[in-house]
């Protein structure tokens, strides 16, 4: 018995003898499982759990922030929605001057928002496809980086500068085009005379063009990323079969990148829906309700809220604008979630 006990005690003295050695730290591990709990392990375990708590907490903070945004907007909007004397979804009025006679509806806001975003998408999607193909397939290798940089610079310009440029420089240049469309194709509801004058260019058409320029870099960046990931084997296979450059693209790159391209377009759509200042500066206010014409003026969700921002003093009228903001939040939430599910992980926003 005593021998066995001394046998057991001997390995414990071995680390003490070997302590000055360089591999003292490896001593306990070599003892075949006989380990003393080292003070460093406890400290590092505590450090580990504190750090993990911090990291997990930050992650939960993001989730909580988005949930809180929805929650607070809803809570602040509900009293005004209950006090609303007009139908929220179908009324074109937005009168909040008298808190006791609140009438606000989002019909006009919805028309203008959707119309301007659609115009932006229709213009930006083909151009972005072309630019992404150019940057990945057609541009000379050495020039591809600077060219890509130029397109990314479009995203660096602040939206207020786009709004300024749009109304002061671009609008007057687009006037002849708009007048021509109105005169010759005015029987199509899209090009009918709107509720603001084409003079000065403050129409949905101009806003749509400027929005297209703003969302172009987003769609291009996503599409470029996806086109770059086309499997080389497929591209080389098509080349080996004698396809021309365009045939290679149409048979390998485009089918592979289609979902990513659509996802990028939806991200661009989300951006166009929420654009505030550029649209606020460009679109001229109108006194009559909107129809389906591209030559209308008016407000989008975002620009309506921003235009009334200085009057946020009383809770009920403010709540009306917060209700509009809630609708915009839900819209962009849905569009972004859809984009993510379409891309399926191939693409990072």
């Amino acid at each position, binding site marked *: 018995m005593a021998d066995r006990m001394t046998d057991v005690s001997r390995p414990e003295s071995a680390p003490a003898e070997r302590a000055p050695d360089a591999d003292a730290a490896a001593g306990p591990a070599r003892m075949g499982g006989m380990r003393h709990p080292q003070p460093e392990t406890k400290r590092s375990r505590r450090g*580990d759990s504190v750090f993990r708590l911090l990291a997990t907490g930050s*992650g939960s903070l993001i989730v909580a922030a988005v949930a809180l*945004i929805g929650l607070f907007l809803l809570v602040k909007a509900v009293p005004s929605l209950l006090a609303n004397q007009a139908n929220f979804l179908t009324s074109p009025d937005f009168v909040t001057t008298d808190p006791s006679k609140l009438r606000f509806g989002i019909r006009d806001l919805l028309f203008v928002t959707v119309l301007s975003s659609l115009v932006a998408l229709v213009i930006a999607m083909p151009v972005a496809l072309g630019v992404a193909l150019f940057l990945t397939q057609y541009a000379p290798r050495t020039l591809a980086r600077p060219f890509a940089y130029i397109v990314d610079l479009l995203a660096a310009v602040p939206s207020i500068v786009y709004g300024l440029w749009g109304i002061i420089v671009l609008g007057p240049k687009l006037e002849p085009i708009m007048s021509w469309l109105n005169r010759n194709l005015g029987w199509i509801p899209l090009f009918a005379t709107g509720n603001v004058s084409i003079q000065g260019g403050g129409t949905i058409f101009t806003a749509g063009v400027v929005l297209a320029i703003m969302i172009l870099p987003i769609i291009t960046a996503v599409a470029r990323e996806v086109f770059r990931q086309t499997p080389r084997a497929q591209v080389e296979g098509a080349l080996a079969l004698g396809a021309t450059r365009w045939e290679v693209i149409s048979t390998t790159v485009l089918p592979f990148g289609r979902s990513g391209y659509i996802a990028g377009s939806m991200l661009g759509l989300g951006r166009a829906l929420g654009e505030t200042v550029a649209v606020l500066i460009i679109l001229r206010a109108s006194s009559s309700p909107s129809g389906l014409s591209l030559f209308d003026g008016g407000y989008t969700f975002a620009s309506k809220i921003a235009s009334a921002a200085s009057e946020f003093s009383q809770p009920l009228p403010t709540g009306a604008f917060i209700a509009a903001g809630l609708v915009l939040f839900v819209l962009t939430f849905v569009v972004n979630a859809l984009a993510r599910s379409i891309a399926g992980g191939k693409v990072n926003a």
Partner: protein
Amino acid sequence: MTVISPDEPAIKPVFRSVGASRKIKNWVATGLVWLAFALAAVPLVWVLVTVLGKGYRALLSPTWFSHSLRGVLPDQFNGGVYHAIYGTVAQSLICAVIAVPIGIMVGIYLVEYGATRTDTESTPRRALFQPRRRVRRQHGRGRLARMTTFMVDILAGVPSIVAALFVFAVWISTLGFSQSALAVSFSLVLLMLPVVVRATEEMLRLVPDDLREASYALGIPKWKTILKIVLPTAFSGIVTGVMLALARVLGETAPVLVLVGYSRSINFDVFDGNMASLPLLIYSELINPTPAGQFRVWGAALTLILIIAVLYLVAALVSRFSAIKTR
């Protein structure tokens, strides 16, 4: 009997020559693609040339960078935008101080703690008649990480006006504080966070796993590995991402419209009172019909673009001189 030369194949190859219609399609596609690029480059050049041409005179004025608009009448050409530059820079810096640590922590969470190494693989296809194996339940950790990365994407798409409204609803409406530059910084945090998180994530993913594993093998705890080995390796990329996020947030106008009032004089206090900023100044001077108004509008626009350009330049220099050497 036909003589078959040994140099030619017995059967004529089909793809020896490209037919005319295919060639035409190819040329048309090439032309369209070059046209698309020109269509993208033209607006950029146009905008920059316009702002430069209309704004350079303001920047050459002697008092532009040192004076505010206090006491300056709408049609006078003196005064400057010092108060607006201070406001823009102060709001963005406070936003950065809050958003960057949180953003980096979320990026660390998503890469180091959240992602399981196998969750990006798709389940392999099984033979038709094999019984379905029970799908292994995801850890709670994996679920939170997936929810977090989803919410970061959603937050990236939240419009600036909605973020401003949210801060208004919480800070001013519910908690009862008054409008201030601090509220603007809070809403800018919401806008800056997703960009910082994505940049951090990307940079941390680039750090080779061997580095981490060597560190663990030497007995270094996880938190020390992250703080002292992984983060410094990814640092320059994270700095670049932060600068780009800052550049994006500098030009946001919606929060300053909703959350702070405009002031023509310098206000150093971020917690109280009206404060000017470059976008707010542009917006306020737009309704000024005099030439001096236009002068100030374009000058402020050029100043804003210059600050953003400087940030981009610094970011490019940082990333050029210290990139992660990946295998």
